[in-house]
């Protein structure tokens, strides 16, 4: 690649052509401050509106200051990133942004993790010289997300992920000038929009404009209530990310400490969503084998490809945008809901309590899970199978609040019986993992032979859309994988057009899957963090003594003792669901 030379702050730097000044400066250790700029390299998320003007620099020969995030380096360019002119401008622009931002940092969910607050600290802002009108919008609380647009800085990151990466289109810049803000159509509630609650807008918001609904007070109250038995389940992706909240390096696997912390918090039973992930594989895998067997026998009615259904944002997506395909996805509930159903319908009986006296809490890397557990079909007489879902971030807050020294906790094992799991379950936490787990089981069930190799590396990776053909003893199984709903949309359109060659497709809404879910510790655009979590997931899998769902003894036991057989009568009642057509209906009104 053609290289060019330029001078930044009196230092010569050589970079490939079309490198931005921002990146060139970073090459030589000069960190130009930014606010709206956001990129997840390798995951195809780019937000560079050049709007906040915090990153402006002086370029010799240029009339005005240049935004470093979008200005490309040119041969011989002379750049100053710290002249008085630059520093004064940056500071004034920051003061302007702060002059239209509530100063309620003390009680803001983002405090301590806010990019605007960090800038104010970095610039040493002590007072805001500009007084005047401040934006005034109503705060909206949806099942998963709190939207406080008074805090919006118009960085447009949420709009970019919602439209470009997810193709959901719930959010857009509206109005103009001082009144402009990112919001929904007609400023309506998110629930009236096509929002899938994937939470990626929350994951990228630099400030406290978009945050999760906080369920931690409810959980503290539930634990404190002696009449309640509080059961907690933890999703796979949580164990590879929670450590970051306590200063550990990204990719640290903290399963044992996590369990210990949950015990210390006072949960009565600490179980694992990995257990119900294995259960999901038994159900979904059986469904897949069943559909393929029928297909091979020439059944024209059979719905293929089978689509996974673990990701609640993805479920919302096809219910809103592709309701005509709602019969295709697996009817298996997500691991969170399978766990809830078993906990309240089986485990409650086993320990001799009523379901109303059991509180099931889930710890999830996800915000859509909050919405999912509130769905009506997952309730019995108004009592939900899963009462509360909290994010990895909320759990970290609980641990800090309870004064637990996370780093020095001794490892503790999950409780029995809903705590045992296989390596196949832990890889549910990343893109390609669910389908790999399904293939591990399907292969052995179909061929009745042991797998020659457990790791299906052809199914792994972080490309948005991946395809692989698995040879199941002569049967060629075409697998499609997508993460990011824009990528899912491509595969769904192929299905609609009758062009899909796949037998099964796995979809996860978030970039990289649950490892970068909307409820995970904030990565602030550093995709190395996501890659470290991704590697840790596979490491956790390798560390497991059992790596196939159908070999999990606890799963085999529950079929024997309670469920009968996969996809049997009891399973259908407890572990399967159905989907709804949620496309907006335009009704004709009589004049």
């Amino acid at each position, binding site marked *: 690649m053609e290289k060019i030379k330029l001078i930044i702050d009196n230092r010569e730097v050589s970079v490939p052509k079309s490198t931005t000044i921002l990146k060139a400066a970073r090459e030589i250790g000069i960190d130009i401050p930014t606010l709206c700029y956001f990129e997840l390299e390798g995951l195809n998320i780019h937000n560079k509106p050049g709007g906040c003007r915090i990153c402006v620099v002086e370029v010799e020969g240029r009339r*005005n200051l240049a935004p470093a995030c979008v200005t*490309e380096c040119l041969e011989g360019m002379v750049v100053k990133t710290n002249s008085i002119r630059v520093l004064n401008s940056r500071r*004034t622009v920051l003061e302007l942004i702060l002059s239209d931002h509530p100063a309620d940092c003390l009680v803001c969910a983002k405090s301590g993790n806010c990019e605007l607050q960090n800038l104010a600290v970095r610039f040493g802002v002590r007072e805001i010289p500009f007084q005047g009108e401040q934006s005034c919008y109503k705060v909206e609380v949806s099942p998963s997300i709190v939207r406080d647009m008074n805090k919006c800085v118009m960085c447009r990151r949420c709009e970019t992920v919602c439209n470009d990466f997810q193709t959901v289109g719930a959010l857009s810049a509206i109005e103009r000038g001082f009144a402009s803000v990112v919001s929904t159509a007609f400023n309506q509630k998110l629930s009236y929009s096509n929002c899938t609650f994937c939470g990626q807008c929350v994951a990228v918001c630099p400030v406290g404009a978009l945050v999760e609904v906080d369920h931690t007070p409810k959980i503290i109250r539930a634990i404190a209530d002696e009449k309640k038995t509080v059961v907690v389940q933890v999703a796979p992706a949580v164990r590879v990310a929670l450590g970051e909240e306590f200063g550990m390096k990204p990719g640290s696997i903290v399963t044992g400490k996590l369990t210990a912390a949950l015990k210390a918090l006072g949960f009565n039973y600490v179980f694992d969503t990995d257990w119900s992930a294995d259960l999901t594989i038994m159900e979904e895998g059986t469904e897949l084998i069943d559909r393929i067997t029928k297909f091979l026998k020439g059944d024209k009615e059979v719905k293929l490809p089978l689509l996974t259904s673990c990701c609640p944002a993805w479920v919302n997506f096809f219910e809103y945008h592709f309701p005509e395909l709602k019969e295709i996805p697996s009817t298996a509930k997500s691991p969170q809901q399978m766990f809830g159903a078993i906990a309240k319908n089986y485990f409650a009986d086993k320990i001799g309590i009523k379901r109303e006296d059991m509180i099931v809490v889930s710890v999830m890397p996800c915000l859509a899970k909050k919405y999912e557990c509130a769905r009506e079909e997952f309730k019995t007489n108004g009592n939900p199978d899963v009462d509360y879902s909290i994010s990895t971030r909320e759990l970290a807050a609980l641990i800090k609040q309870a004064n637990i020294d996370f780093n020095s906790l001794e490892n503790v094992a999950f409780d029995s019986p809903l705590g045992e799991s296989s390596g196949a379950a832990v890889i549910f936490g990343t893109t390609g993992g669910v389908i790999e787990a399904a293939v591990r089981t399907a292969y052995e069930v179909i061929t009745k032979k042991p797998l020659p190799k457990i790791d299906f590396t052809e199914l792994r990776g972080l490309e948005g859309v991946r395809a692989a053909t698995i040879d199941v003893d002569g049967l060629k199984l075409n697998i499609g994988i997508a993460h990011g709903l824009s990528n899912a949309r491509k595969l769904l359109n192929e299905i609609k057009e009758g062009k899909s060659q796949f037998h099964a497709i796995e979809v996860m809404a978030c970039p990289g899957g649950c490892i970068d879910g909307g409820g995970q510790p904030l990565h602030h655009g550093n995709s190395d963090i996501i890659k470290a979590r991704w590697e840790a997931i596979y490491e956790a899998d390798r560390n497991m003594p059992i790596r196939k769902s159908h070999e999990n003894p606890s799963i085999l036991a529950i079929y024997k003792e309670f469920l009968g057989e996969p996809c049997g009568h009891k399973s259908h009642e407890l572990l399967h669901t159905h989907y709804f057509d949620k496309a907006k209906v335009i009704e004709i009104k009589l004049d």
Partner: protein
Amino acid sequence: MANNKKQIRIALRNCGFINPENIGDYIARSGYAALASVLGANNPQNSIDVIKKSGLRGRGGGGFPTGLKWEIASKNHADQKYVVCNADEGDPGAFMDRSILEGDPHSVLEAMAINGFCIGATKGLIYIRAEYPLAIERLLIAINQAEEISVLGNNIMNTGFDFNIELRYGAGAFVCGEETALIHSMEGGRGEPTFKPPFPAQEGYLKKPTNVNNVETFANIPAIILKGWEWFSSIGTEKSKGTKVFALAGKVNNVGLIEVPMGITLREVIYEIGNGIVNDKNFKAVQTGGPSGGCLTEKFLDTPIDYDNLIAAGSMMGSGGMIVMDEDDCMVSVAKFYLDFTVEESCGKCAPCRIGNKRLFELLEKITEGKGTMEDLDHLKNLSKVTKDTALCGLGQTSPNPVLSTIDNFWNEYLAHVVDKKCPAGQCKALKCYIIDTEQCIGCTVCARACPVGAIKGEKKTPHEISQEICIKCGACMEKCKFNAISIK
């Protein structure tokens, strides 16, 4: 209206002389002859060179050399290119584009076709304000007529050159005068500008190379082709050739559109063409360049008007608004008026324009209400400079100009508002002080009865007094007083 001496009509050459709904009239005045000659010569680069050598610069505001712009677009290769005419005139107080489109639509169509041939585009789009129904109607008629006789459409004049023109409607956004914003608007989106590069000539409408010029720029093209670059460049100053159309308005006796050679002085425009100030009041300033421009004072009355002199004087050419102000105009209020406009017209994409202009406006409001401090004046200056230096597009980069130029030229007026709490022009309501002259007042009580808030007290047949705490400065008392006893201090 305005008197004709000192005027030279190039862009307006046909306005008022032809029936704009009859293509025959246009052809009779050498219409489409320029296109015929360009197509006949079949040498696009040659024609671009003519425009380059003529020295024509963009009349929309920026003053970028037109020929150079065409050349850049011609050198970017693509399967499709576009010619766009910016007819989204949004400067408050300027209507030259509308007059050209209503009075001589074919001159723009012909120029666009010439432009298309020169850069290798077969499609033209006119982005026009929806608020200009007559201009739209006449353009549509003109396009139809031109297609009928094959001076537009497919296989123009049997040369094999195709050029089709469509209209796109603006919807009321001043920022769409910025070319990238205009392009996003034509694509059906919010009219938000994007960082350049890429320039429209590289990646414009539908990501194809696009040349954007404004109406007046285009209207000059056929004349330059027909009469030659030497003729055109003989008019004007060294770096600004040809003429400029201005909308002369405000406190002059003759108002209206004028077309004058570059290099004419403000004095000639105001006193000879405009026939002086209304009611023989004192000239105070002339505002050029609209919301992006500035105010020029008496010391610039004899400066030749061209792109560079106006910038040097702290204003700019802009699209051609020229508003004359007299001693009764408060310059702080004038700056506030323009900022009010930019606050409303900012797209909101970049922080300095979205919030900075709002804060500038609020500071000016504070000053005109007599609540300003010296510190506010410091903030006003710094914020104006930073906004200019950091805003994303031309709108924000120029929006503080009315503030900076009034600060430069009328600093004393700012000080009067801030220090003495007085508006020298007597225009700022909050700073007005109505006073009854006890010598003149005979105590007729008319004023006390006229006062809507009961601020005037006094016994019959004795001098009255106005309570400044209660007074809302409506002026009703002064209007009613028959003895000239009430004055504003």
